[in-house]
């Protein structure tokens, strides 16, 4: 099969270069190989590379594909990219929005405000075209490389075959210079929803198909729409069964139309037909230019397990959701955050391979939560029976006048990170009357410090956080050196980490999730919780 581009590039970021591996007499072995140079693959390479772990990323293209695709990036994603050193450029480029309006036919049903909680470095959401998101990640890879991070991005390297053995994987790769072979101790599959790697390994990917098609049109226009999310059910302008208008950077607007199941794709994508729908929505006097159009369908599904021995899957390759709620790329970045430190501890011998089973358990739990939420949104937006349509419209009719019906209106439940409740790495909660939001398994909420923010000081390694309680500067446990951090019990930190408790000690994982918490520092409890959090218990 020739190595032709399957799509046009927005940015050429990692042009093909011949690697010395291609001239080696025997296949070169690498600790970690990542397949797929999308946002999840590049973030994986970055996470590992910043830990000093040599990582080779293979992609069959030479950069980022065109099209805005994922456009809503959640606070948690920005916090994770902040830890990688590229959250700020995302925020600077992104569009911040808080207000959403829901319409039915020609009436506004209600509006909602995300009302982001104060005292966080990052907003609840930004809108940003996916190519920018990917470019900022690759830019960060380049500065990390300059500082010595052992990351290699190999463009136009297509994996054609894999041989998965007990303790390594053999990869056959095509390049413009012909084929070569390498070996990997660990292979991370980030090659997207149609993952060729998953298919090569013959692995399942089951779930629900939603029988609908959505037309995306990105346009630029001079019209003065506010920076809000507008969603129409059964819009009066008849451009689709539902419609969405959302602002992106560079004066670009994302417009989605729900087209139904039985459509002629080629016909619908013709410019005159796209324009007919847009004209009906925007009115005859609005001038606009088409930037990008696409028709997508989706499924909600996941692999049975995300780990197959030495092969680990992340992002869309492992789980796919509907776009409603922005749970695709955002959940993929959480996969990376979860996997990076675990693989790091396994590679340096601190933890055993079984720690990686907790990646599978925790992220399947997250995927199931995302699939549940995005399936419910889809069922509301695209009712599939007469009675579900009747109920949906009854909710919309009532929501205009009765507040009780508004929480039932579901045009997408926006992505929030899941709490790993009851999963094996957590130590049971030992802080009486502690806030539920910081219970073991929860991601740490940010909070302002006198200088900067709390999350600036968490992550990357294990931290013992004393809130109004002094903790030692360093603690050794099970081959790890914990960083101690003592912060005063005041303001948002008190609300978010103490509740009614006078003081607390938190064990925080490298992915900023709470592993354990206690009312006081106890030199015997901490090592036990550490052992549990790295799978030694």
């Amino acid at each position: 099969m020739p190595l032709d581009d399957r799509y046009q590039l927005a940015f050429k970021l990692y042009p093909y270069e011949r690697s010395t591996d291609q001239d080696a007499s025997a296949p070169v072995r690498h600790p970690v190989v990542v397949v797929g140079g999308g946002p999840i693959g590049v973030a994986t390479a970055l996470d590992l590379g910043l830990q000093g772990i040599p990582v080779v990323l293979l992609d069959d293209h030479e950069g980022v594909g065109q099209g805005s695709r994922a456009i809503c990036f959640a606070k948690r994603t920005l916090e994770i990219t902040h830890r990688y050193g590229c959250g700020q450029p995302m925020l600077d480029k992104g569009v911040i929005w808080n207000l959403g309006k829901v319409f039915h036919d020609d009436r506004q049903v209600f509006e909602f405000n995300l009302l982001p909680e104060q005292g966080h470095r990052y907003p609840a959401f930004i809108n940003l075209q996916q190519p920018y998101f990917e470019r900022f990640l690759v830019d960060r890879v380049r500065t990390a490389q300059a500082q010595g991070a052992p990351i290699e991005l190999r463009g136009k390297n297509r994996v054609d075959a894999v041989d998965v053995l007990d303790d390594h994987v053999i990869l056959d790769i095509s390049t413009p210079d012909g084929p070569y072979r390498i070996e990997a101790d660990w292979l991370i599959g980030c090659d997207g929803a149609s993952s060729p790697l998953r298919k090569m390994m013959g692995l399942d990917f089951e779930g629900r198909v939603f029988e609908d098609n959505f037309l995306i049109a990105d346009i630029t226009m001079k019209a003065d729409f506010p920076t809000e999310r507008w969603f129409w059910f059964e819009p009066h302008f008849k451009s689709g069964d539902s419609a969405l208008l959302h602002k992106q950077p560079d004066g670009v607007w994302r417009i989605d139309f729900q087209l139904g199941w039985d459509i002629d794709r080629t016909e619908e994508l013709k410019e005159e037909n796209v324009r007919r729908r847009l004209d009906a929505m925007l009115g005859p006097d609005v001038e606009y230019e088409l930037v990008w159009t696409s028709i997508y369908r989706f499924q909600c599904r996941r692999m049975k397990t995300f780990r197959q021995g030495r092969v680990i899957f992340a992002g869309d390759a492992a789980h796919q959701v509907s776009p409603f709620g922005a749970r695709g790329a955002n959940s993929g970045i959480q996969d990376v955050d979860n996997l990076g430190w675990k693989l790091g501890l396994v590679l340096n011998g601190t933890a055993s391979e079984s720690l990686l089973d907790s990646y599978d358990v925790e992220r399947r739990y997250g995927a199931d939560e995302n699939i549940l939420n995005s399936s419910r949104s889809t069922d509301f937006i695209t009712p599939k029976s007469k009675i579900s349509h009747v109920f949906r419209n009854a909710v919309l009719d009532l929501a205009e006048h009765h507040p009780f019906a508004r929480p039932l209106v579901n045009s997408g439940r926006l992505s929030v990170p899941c709490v790993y409740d009851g999963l094996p790495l957590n130590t049971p909660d030992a802080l009486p009357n502690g806030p539920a939001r910081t219970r073991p398994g929860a991601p740490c909420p940010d909070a302002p410090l006198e200088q900067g923010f709390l999350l600036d000081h968490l992550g990357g390694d294990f931290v013992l956080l004393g809130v109004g309680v002094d903790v030692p500067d360093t603690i050794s446990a099970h081959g790890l050196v914990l960083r101690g951090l003592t912060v005063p019990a005041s303001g948002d930190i008190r609300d978010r980490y103490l509740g009614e408790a006078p003081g607390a000690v938190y064990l925080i994982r490298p992915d900023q999730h709470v592993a354990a918490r206690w009312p006081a520092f106890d030199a015997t409890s901490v090592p036990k919780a550490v052992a549990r959090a790295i799978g030694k218990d």
Partner: protein
Amino acid sequence: MALNTAPNIPDPDGFYAELLNAHDGLSDDDSIALNARLLLILANHIGDRAVLTEALAAASKGDT
């Protein structure tokens, strides 16, 4: 007691999914019958005649 039209159902998405699941696979007539039974059960649970009258008025107004 006046009709409560403030949000009052914990886990609204879960409730809505359960409601629709109850209709899964039913014919239109069977769905109508299920709705009628459900309405009568809930009305009995509420019990307050004045509230039921108010609820009927609120639901009828939506039918425009």
